[in-house]
């Protein structure tokens, strides 16, 4: 048996979701451990730019109910309306709470929090553009992550920095009792025993070749869920952000368009006027990404290969750019060689966000189809943030709703876990095989023989997903993608790492991460093949229409035999009327 630490709750992931949940529990005097494979402020939340959405009404008239409508519509009606009501209702409180914690929001002249318009935001259920995204310049994620980390220092949360979570510990009755993890510096495996385990491991868009995501975004929690025999929800839905820097992938915030920027094709045409006659450049992200892809396909892309479009912002003036979009200016100059005060930024749709993930209810409890129904809580297990699918984003996330998701559901998870811990005071015994899955994986890599290499296999997986499961999908392409991915998976068995050092072995980490990425890639392809309709970010060339009769339901992918199950969308909100699915135009 490997050495063990015991806590009331163990949180895996030190990004916004994990830190918000940790804070809630630490302030309730619980013994909380946060395990993170990087120092918390290196988490990917730090890269969020444009802001966090809440109907504060500081700039335009606003109402949480309008925010809810926009989110339901943005989700292409696949979002669960109870969870969306919960999030949008709680949004103003969650943002004020961040402000009270010290988040350095930009300010309006009257001293209130600065808000900017973002895509898909309207007043009065589809009327005028709303101004709803609260921002700290274009560094909102950085400001949010650092603020939450700082509050956790004050709350004395215990951090296990640079520990890599390996696998969930689950007993025969299905209770989750903690997690195994590798101490990266020494190579020592540990068991973290806890009555509550919360996954906040972020997204996995590193399955794609071109991604805005950090290197660390390997969807580790999702790999753990699949290995534990639990399903993943809606894995066909990946958001391609319209404006990533070509090749590099770095994100150029929607806030650029919110501040007055617009897209141009090679003929200098504002092509979004054609695709979204009302919202123009501030249509939903899926709509804008498809428009750019169409322009490129039609030969109207820019540059020598015609493979990007331009995002123009210089007309708002250098002063505004420097005060409201300083980070974007820095990124553009560093990675695109362009000063946006003088010239347009080259951009192209880039894999950005995973709408699917670990199925949860609105208390952030992980739910699974078991004996009594499609949404039975897995006792002791929670998931929050991008790794979770609650589902507030449905088939397409609105900009600014991701940071909101982190804090609203991080807080809700903390609160529910506190209750759960009060009701479940006695730790259940760890099963005898608690560490077997983890030690088995480590041992395999220690003894591996063969001539395949991890970076090569990872690159092939990324190419397959990019080519076979991008902005547009088609049956033959997807089938071919699954076949090719199968070959990569088979070759993983022959993969070796030559670096056998115990100390800070990053080659081994990358191998363990690939074991998480590959099943996510498979879940994505299989789920995308099954869904024979186009909805939100999932665009099938061969099924261009949304099909509510057959597909107004969530996909559940399980690893065993690539099994797919389905569950209905929760159309009934908590208190208000259902927003009935209707045609979605911007």
């Amino acid at each position, binding site marked *: 048996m490997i050495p063990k630490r015991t806590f009331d709750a163990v949180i895996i992931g030190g990004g916004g979701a994990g830190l918000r949940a940790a804070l809630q529990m630490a302030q309730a005097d619980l013994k909380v451990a946060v395990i993170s494979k990087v120092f918390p402020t290196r988490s990917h939340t730090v890269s969020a730019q444009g802001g966090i959405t809440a109907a504060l009404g500081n700039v335009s008239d606003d109402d949480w109910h309008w925010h809810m409508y926009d989110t339901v519509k943005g989700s292409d009606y696949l979002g669960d309306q109870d969870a969306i009501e919960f999030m949008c209702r709680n949004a103003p409180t969650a943002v004020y709470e961040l402000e009270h914690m010290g988040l350095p929001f930009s*300010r309006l002249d009257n001293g209130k929090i600065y808000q900017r318009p973002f895509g898909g935001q309207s007043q009065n259920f589809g009327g005028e553009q709303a101004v709803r995204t609260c921002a700290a310049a274009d560094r909102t994620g*950085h400001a949010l992550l650092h603020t939450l980390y*700082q509050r956790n220092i004050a709350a004395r949360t215990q951090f296990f920095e640079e520990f890599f979570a390996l696998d969930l510990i689950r007993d025969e009755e299905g209770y989750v009792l903690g997690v195994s993890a590798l101490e990266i510096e020494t190579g020592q495996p540990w068991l973290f025993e806890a009555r509550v385990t919360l996954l906040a491991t972020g997204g996995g868009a590193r399955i794609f070749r071109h991604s805005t995501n950090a*290197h660390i975004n390997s969807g580790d929690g999702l790999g753990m869920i699949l290995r534990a025999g639990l399903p993943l929800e809606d894995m066909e839905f990946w958001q391609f952000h319209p404006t990533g820097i070509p090749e590099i992938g770095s994100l150029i915030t929607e806030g650029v368009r919110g501040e007055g920027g617009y897209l141009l094709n090679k003929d200098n045409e504002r092509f979004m006027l054609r695709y979204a006659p009302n919202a123009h450049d501030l249509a939903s992200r899926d709509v804008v990404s498809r428009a750019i892809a169409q322009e490129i396909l039609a030969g109207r892309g820019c540059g020598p290969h015609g493979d990007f479009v331009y995002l123009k912002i210089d007309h708002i003036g250098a002063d505004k750019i420097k005060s409201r979009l300083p980070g974007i200016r820095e990124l553009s100059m560093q990675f695109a060689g362009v000063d946006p005060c003088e010239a347009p930024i080259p951009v192209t749709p880039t894999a950005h966000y995973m709408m699917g993930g670990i199925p949860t209810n609105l208390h952030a409890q992980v739910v699974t189809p078991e004996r009594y129904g499609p949404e039975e809580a897995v006792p002791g297990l929670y998931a929050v943030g991008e790794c979770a699918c609650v589902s507030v984003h449905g088939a397409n996330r609105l900009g600014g709703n991701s940071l909101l998701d982190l804090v609203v559901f991080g807080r809700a998870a903390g609160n529910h876990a506190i209750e759960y811990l009060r009701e479940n005071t006695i730790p259940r015994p760890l099963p005898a095989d608690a560490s077997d899955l983890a030690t088995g994986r480590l041992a395999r890599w220690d003894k591996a023989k063969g001539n395949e290499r991890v970076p090569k296999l990872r690159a092939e997986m990324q190419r397959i997903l990019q080519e076979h499961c991008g902005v547009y999908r088609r049956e033959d392409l997807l089938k071919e993608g699954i076949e090719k991915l199968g070959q990569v998976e088979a070759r993983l068995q022959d993969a070796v790492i030559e*670096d056998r050092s115990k100390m800070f072995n990053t080659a081994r980490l990358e191998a363990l991460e690939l074991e998480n990425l590959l099943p996510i890639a498979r879940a994505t392809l299989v789920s995308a093949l099954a869904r024979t309709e186009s909805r939100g970010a999932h665009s099938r060339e061969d099924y261009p229409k949304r099909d509510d009769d057959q597909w107004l339901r969530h996909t559940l992918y399980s690893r065993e035999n690539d099994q797919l199950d389905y569950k209905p969308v929760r159309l009934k909100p908590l208190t208000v009327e259902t927003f009935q699915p209707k045609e979605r135009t911007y």
Partner: protein
Amino acid sequence: MKFRIYRYDPESDAKPRMQEYVLDFDPQGKKVLDALIAIKETLDESLAFRRSCREGVCGSDGLNINGVNSLACVTALEGLKEPIDIRPLPRLAVIRDLIVDMGQFYQHYKAVKPYLINLDPEPENERLQSPEERAELDGLYECILCGCCTTSCPSFWWNPDKFLGPAALLQAYRVIADTRDQATDERLDYLEDPYRLFRCHGIMNCVEVCPKGLNPTEAIGKIKTLLVKRSL
């Protein structure tokens, strides 16, 4: 391209060594991190370094590159003199290769209580702050805790355990400068110490290396001014 990279694995090396690599690589538009990744993927998977966002906001990959502390992910390869000399950040214990023990650095950060202290009941909505008051935080809150400044500071090299270093002091001033914070006196009490703050001699290496263009020396000067004002 030629590289000389600091290598040390406590498991197999008695002492650190510099290893040379020749990488077939077109540097155009590429950063030092791209080259490190290419070396790891194609020449030597045992080379260990930290990285995360690869765009200069997470602060993972502060390194000493050709003698200058900088972030590998935003340092352009073009224009660097070859062989490109890459070492861990100075003065911190090396865990392995380019990975240093940041423990001391984080301790100093935590020691300045880098969080807002305000004991008033929280209002229902936001606390108000004028754009001018908020502008006081610009150049302070953007710190990414990469450690480039602190590990370039001779005062830190001499007294790493007692001098808080530019990064922590920048964050100390970030909360002092915030109109929402009520603990200025308590904070100044902690900083009024021959080592914690006053070991800064205005050498300004921190300003020169900060990859985010921040100015810790100026922030330290403002703390000193507040201390002087308070004593009058």
